[in-house]
């Protein structure tokens, strides 16, 4: 085997601390090395031409390039090798920059190490096998998980480009948190009014398969080729018969057993219900836990009134599988319920604010419902305890955000804005009312955002107090809010009629479980991780899985929508070609020696190892052995290290190659 060694100076980057000529000269003497050269910039056109010329001239079989990290230019040099007629997998990179010149000062020692690194690469490349890239087909269908504004936008974009979409929403209706909002900053336009048309568009779109009241149960496969199992929860209503007249919901005798979660528990709902009037689809669900029929076997009021015989008490959950090429995760957020300490977390909670104890201490979403024209008070400002109009409201920002000791250390980003909005909406309706806002800082970066906050302060007379509230107590129907005005350095006490807490935006309750189902990483708060914080904010690290909206970090609507459209574009990039190329780094079983212990099968994170029956001449199975499905194998090599008898090997990183590197140490 003839090997060529090419040492790059990377301008001064390598050359300054590694004596490149000495490296290339020393490597000339390595067994198998035919030619060893150094050059200023190997990645440049002349550098690459030099490699190609040498390959042709000296009829090289393999090359080693001593340069920057393989993560930078491995592709470049592989391509050069291919151009000159050698297999791309007979190229090895010795990382002389990131792992040598940049991290060491001593020229002699660094040069010695560089020689070692090249020698290791030479020994490896001698054992490398020529491999051919694997082509896999792409299923041009997208799964969108979560039907909030982000999911809706992503689904519409992909569908409008002509690709099929499956939109899975766990609630009975799509819409997400945006459907609960009253009016939206910074323009104060009505949330429902701008959202509802989009929801209807989703419903009517011929390319979108909408699955509400459904959850993703299992994701198998890999980029371009996922098989997703979706659980369609039993609605107990036959969707094909229901016309959405809603008679059943009005006649249901269950009145005060279940809180209306859309109204943030400020109202009740019947056992058979549509979450809100504009729901899409406008088909009710029956809540088994409160329905009288499921309790006593009697009632069936809904059955009596339904003219379409759509009620079906014995409907069961069904499992649906879908073939999918790309997944967009848009599962959004939830609010930190400070009444309950999130389980298993170090968070201490805010007992001193009396949330959950005092009826008039509410959180942001509850206030949205109170302010909403379609809410429980029809948009009249009435406090929950006695229905009176509050004359003094205290808003507290950063409850649970930016608080290492009791909450989460991150900033929830949107609370400054919606608190200003809340105070403004209140002042617009209750002209003689007073609004106080306790804040730490006002963070209003964004187009027209700062202006919006200034408007609240200057035009609407909202009083901003910099400082934190230490305690809220109740006295004769008033809430005594004790805090400190840190700008004036004095304690402050306000007797409010109502208190609104801008609690932190946190990850969905089951965010980490879903992440594990899909196979994407998440941060310590449960928000999903992007592949690169700056350059790849839309992709997850798992190929073919993209992120949109507040499931990645707290976001407002415009940001969620922008991210959703970007995720849609990413999915469509994938659909731009019929086949995907994959590195052929996959495991292969030695059929002769596999003992069929299936340890490899147990450890494989992708379920890529299957059982293969070995049959004798008469077709009788004489043993069962492991078999790797190349399509599913992602090339981690966990199986190879687990196999006791070493009967499974990873192409491209096989054990012989590793041993050769060790031997060359």
């Amino acid at each position: 085997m003839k090997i060529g060694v090419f040492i790059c100076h990377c301008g001064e980057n390598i050359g300054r601390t590694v004596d490149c000529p000495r490296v290339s000269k020393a490597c000339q003497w390595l067994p198998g090395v035919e030619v060893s050269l150094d050059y200023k910039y190997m990645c440049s056109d002349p550098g690459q031409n030099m490699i190609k010329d040498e390959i042709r001239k000296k009829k090289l079989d393999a090359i080693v390039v001593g340069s920057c990290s393989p993560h930078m230019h491995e592709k470049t040099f592989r391509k050069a090798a291919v151009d000159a007629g050698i297999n791309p997998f007979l190229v090895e990179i010795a990382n002389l920059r990131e792992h040598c010149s940049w991290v060491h000062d001593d020229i002699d020692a660094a040069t010695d190490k560089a020689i070692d690194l090249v020698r290791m690469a030479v020994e490896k490349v001698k054992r490398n096998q020529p491999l051919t890239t694997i082509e896999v087909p792409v299923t041009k269908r997208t799964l969108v998980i979560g039907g909030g504004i982000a999911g809706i936008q992503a689904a519409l974009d992909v569908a409008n480009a002509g690709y099929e979409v499956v939109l899975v929403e766990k609630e009975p209706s799509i819409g997400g948190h945006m459907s609960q909002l009253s009016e939206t900053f910074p323009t104060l336009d009505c949330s429902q009014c701008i959202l509802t048309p989009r929801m209807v568009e989703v419903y009517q779109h011929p390319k979108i398969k909408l699955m509400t009241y459904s959850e993703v149960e299992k994701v198998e496969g890999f980029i371009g080729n996922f098989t997703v199992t979706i659980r369609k929860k039993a609605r107990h209503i036959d969707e094909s018969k229901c016309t959405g007249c809603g008679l059943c919901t009005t006649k249901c005798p269950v009145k005060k057993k279940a809180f209306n979660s859309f109204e943030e528990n400020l109202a009740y709902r019947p056992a058979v219900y549509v979450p809100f009037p504009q729901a899409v689809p406008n088909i009710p669900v029956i809540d088994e836990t409160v329905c009288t029929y499921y309790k006593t076997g009697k009632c069936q009021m809904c059955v009596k009134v339904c003219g379409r015989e759509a009620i079906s008490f014995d409907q069961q959950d069904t499992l649906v599988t879908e073939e999918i090429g790309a997944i967009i995760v848009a599962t959004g957020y939830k609010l930190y319920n400070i009444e309950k300490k999130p389980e298993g977390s170090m968070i201490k909670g805010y007992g001193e604010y009396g949330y959950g104890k005092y009826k008039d201490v509410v959180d942001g979403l509850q206030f949205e419902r109170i302010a909403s024209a379609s809410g429980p008070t029809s948009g009249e400002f009435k406090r929950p305890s006695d229905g009176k109009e509050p004359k003094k409201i205290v808003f507290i920002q950063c409850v649970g955000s930016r608080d290492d000791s009791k909450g989460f250390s991150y900033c929830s980003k949107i609370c400054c804005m919606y608190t200003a909005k809340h105070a403004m909406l209140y002042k617009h309706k209750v002209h003689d009312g007073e609004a106080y806002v306790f804040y730490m800082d006002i963070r209003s970066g964004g187009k027209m955002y700062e202006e919006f906050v200034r408007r609240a302060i200057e035009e609407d007379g909202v009083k901003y107090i910099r400082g934190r509230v230490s305690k809220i107590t109740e006295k004769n129907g008033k809430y005594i809010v004790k805090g400190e005005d840190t700008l004036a350095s004095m304690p402050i006490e306000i007797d409010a009629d109502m208190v609104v807490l801008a609690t932190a935006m946190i990850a969905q309750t089951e965010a980490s479980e879903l992440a594990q189902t899909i196979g994407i990483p998440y941060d310590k708060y449960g928000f999903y991780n992007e592949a690169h914080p700056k350059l790849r904010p839309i992709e997850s690290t798992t190929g073919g899985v993209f992120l949109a909206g507040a499931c990645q970090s707290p976001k407002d609507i415009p940001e969620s929508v922008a991210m959703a459209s970007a995720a849609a574009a990413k999915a469509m990039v994938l659909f731009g070609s019929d086949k995907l190329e994959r590195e052929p780094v996959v495991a292969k079983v030695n059929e002769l020696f596999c003992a069929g212990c299936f340890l490899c099968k147990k450890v494989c994170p992708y379920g890529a190892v299957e059982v293969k029956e070995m049959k004798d001449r008469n077709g009788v199975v004489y043993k069962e052995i492991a078999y790797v499905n190349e399509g599913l194998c992602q090339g981690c090599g966990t199986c190879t290290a687990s196999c006791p008898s070493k009967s499974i090997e990873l192409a491209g990183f096989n054990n012989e190659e590793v041993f050769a590197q060790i031997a060359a140490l």
Partner: protein
Amino acid sequence: MEELKKLAKELLENKTVAAVIGYQQVDDKRTKPIIVTTPEDASKLVFNEYCLNNLAVYLTKARIKNLAKQNGTTLKLGIVAKPCDIHAIVALIQESQLKREDVYIIGMNCHGVVKDYGMDFSGETLATKCTPCDSHKPLYSDSNLGEVKDTPKVSDEVLEKIQAVEKMSHKERFEYFKKEFDKCIKCYACRAACPLCYCQRCITDKTVPRWVESSPHSRGNFSWNVVRAFHLSGRCIGCGECERACPMDIPLSLLNRRMTETAKQAFAYVSGRSLDTPTLVGSYDVKDSDELFM
């Protein structure tokens, strides 16, 4: 004993099993394995304190497996098994080497066996594997035979030796094991006797690349013994057959038992005890200790 003979005879007669793997008396203080294939031979079967072998090792051997194949159908293989031997059977089932329905387990109540043939059974001569044994009643057996007697109570010799080793300095320990391993002649009797060393080709026989140097010098001996012990970590069921088979008297149980303790302490796992739990090796728990990692 009569019930064992009777049962084996019946099983063979009514073709429930193709063969019964059991023990046969050699002299009054020695037995040897026997594979009974005819109802007549069933009378040769015995069970007593001299039944040292872990017969589960035979269940994975092709030639024995072939006995079960008769006229196009597969019968069961009967096996006379001590409770500890059943642990090996359980582990084999978990590791796909055996199907539960392919064996008929004649589980024997057991109160211990002797260290070696020719000894009188007493506390002093009780096999070291039997002192910490807590499963005198067989699990998962299809028939459960034999008298129930108390096991003599004696101290746990192997554990004491392990503790003594752990008191040594690293250097002393290395020296100690080096000396022991140096005796190894690479006969692989340990491997042959182990029910869980069923690999078609052991790692040490793999030549390209060479994983474990096969020539008997300190370095090769060291890696062989490390690799064997590691491969059995979390899997070894503690039958002690490897140590008993070793012609050079290398104290292999000092390694096996030490790893068994790790499995117990770090992962609350004992191998071969339950068909319903996933094997320790091959599964993981997100909450496994992270102490080892910086």
